[in-house]
């Protein structure tokens, strides 16, 4: 009887002790994360409403929404926002499609599969600076492979300066980013494919469904819950991309490859206008958060449309 009475208080005591222990174990990590994320985020928020004195390292004066007003009326800013969205969208659409196809391939059995998998994972380990240098050399006007190849095939009559055209340069950077992004997404797709029940496909094949029917009616809906988060993560990562742009074009020519992230870098560390840069960083954050919030909505939609089947 006494045992039964003591039981609750004893477990209560254990419960709180375990809580304290759990917190102690995670506390160092949380402190570091708070120092390097939360405090800076607040700091950036505050100075986005101010003019910041970079030499004396303090706030000169608060100017309310002037920074934001300046940005919205600035052509370079608005065009870089649109460019970032296009750039992010292009990268994640292409990466998703290619990764999915490669994952389908790696899901088959063939000789040399392990080798091919290593080769496909490799670009992920390539530092983005190296990939910048690599694609820079590929598209180099005098020594690039692309010019030489196209010239010898007779596609172009003379050597082209690829990176001099803003639109071409933007797509060259997108190619570099896609090449680097494919490995990671492929691995995720592959693990998704391997977790699918093979019986469903066999049953469908027995029932006489052809390849396209099997794809659109079984594979596509089954893979969608994996594909949507990957797609959005890739979007967010593409908006963050900086290194490749910095190495290949430095935002040029004529600002044609300046994404929002690069715009912020230029404002902060080239013209040292920290207030404006912070305001722009918050715009980037809002776009990112909007993208991150989409999975919750889409998951709801998927449940709504496919969940009841």
């Amino acid at each position, binding site marked *: 009887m006494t045992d039964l009475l003591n039981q609750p208080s004893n477990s209560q005591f254990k419960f709180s002790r*375990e*809580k304290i*222990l759990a917190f102690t*174990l*995670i506390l*160092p*990590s*949380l402190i*570091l*994360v708070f*120092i*390097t*994320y939360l405090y*800076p985020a607040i700091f*950036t928020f505050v*100075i986005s409403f101010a003019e910041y004195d970079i030499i004396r*390292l303090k706030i000169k004066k608060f100017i309310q929404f002037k920074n934001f007003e300046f940005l919205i009326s600035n052509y370079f800013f608005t065009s870089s926002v649109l460019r970032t969205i296009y750039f992010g969208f292009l990268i994640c659409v292409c990466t998703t499609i290619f990764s999915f196809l*490669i994952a389908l*391939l790696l899901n088959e059995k*063939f000789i040399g599969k392990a080798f*091919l998998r290593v*080769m*496909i*994972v*490799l670009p992920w380990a*390539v*530092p*983005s*600076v*190296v990939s910048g*240098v*690599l*694609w820079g050399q*590929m598209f*180099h006007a*005098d*020594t690039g*492979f692309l010019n*030489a*190849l196209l010239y010898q095939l007779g596609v172009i009559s003379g050597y082209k300066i690829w990176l001099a055209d803003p639109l071409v340069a933007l797509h060259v950077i997108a190619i570099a980013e896609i090449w680097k992004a494919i490995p*990671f997404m492929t*691995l*995720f797709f592959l*693990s998704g494919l391997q*977790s699918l029940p093979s019986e469903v496909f066999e049953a469908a094949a027995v029932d006489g469904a052809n390849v396209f029917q099997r794809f659109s009616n079984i594979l596509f809906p089954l893979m969608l819950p994996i594909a949507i988060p990957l797609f959005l993560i890739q979007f967010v990562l593409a*908006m*963050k991309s900086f*290194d490749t742009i*910095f*190495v290949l074009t430095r935002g040029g020519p004529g600002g044609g490859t300046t994404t929002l992230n690069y715009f*912020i*870098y230029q404002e*902060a*560390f080239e013209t040292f206008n920290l207030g404006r*840069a*912070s305001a722009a*960083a*918050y715009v980037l*954050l809002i776009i990112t958060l909007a993208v*991150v919030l989409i999975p919750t909505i889409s998951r709801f939609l998927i449940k709504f449309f496919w969940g009841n089947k």
Partner: protein
Amino acid sequence: MKKNLILKNFFIYFSALIVFLIMFFPLYGLILTSIQPENIIRSRNLSFFPTEIIFTHFAEVLKPNHISNIYEGIKNSLIVSFLTSFLCIILAFPAAYSLARLNLPAKNIILGTLISIYFLPTILFVIPLFVILVSYQLDDTILSLVVPYTAFTLPFVIWILKSFIDKLPVEVEEAAKIDGCSTLQLLIHIIFPLLRPGLIAAFIFAFILSWVEFLTPLIFTNNLKISTVALGLFRSTIDIKIGQQAAAAIITLIPVTILMIFFQQYITKVVLSGSDK
């Protein structure tokens, strides 16, 4: 039926070849450029096989006075990456255990916040960190790289370790607890050895991410003595010698590639363990 199978096989090998070419050719081009003399690189006679192999570009790049300072860069990057990975593991191991096994309130919120932080724009945090570092005169130090790297990588490492701990059998821990093992002893003597594959995977992740980091050293360091290998490589692009630039790129690439090939299985395991929930 048999004809169909041959056709399918042909299609598989054909697409495998195409994928291989697309993914590998850029790297091959880089290797080719790094081992050929400058005049062959610049000539208009394209050849996809090396006609003359030299290693002078590598020798030039590794000289102490070279513009890219790769030699110093490798040393610094090794120090910074090792410190970062080490720090990450020390911080993340107890945190991951706490998240995986202990009764931590708001567990999912904490984990979710940590993971989503990784996807937020880095530049948002870099601006104030720069101001802090400059005002305490901590810029241009190893510390100014290790601390932000650790913070940027930590959420990822915690997630990796947590997914590995989740897979460990609980029975071992329960048995140890009944035998009177304290949580600290449990962590050091039982979980730590069991978790070795996870720790190696996490260490490699942290190492690779710190090795390739570019924005942080670009902003936080000016001194050539603290320059990391990625920064050194960027500096070599100012120079017009394409061969040396390629050689510098290869040198930057080698350590992470070796890690990647040897430990590819661990990394695949991480990805697989994350998605089957």
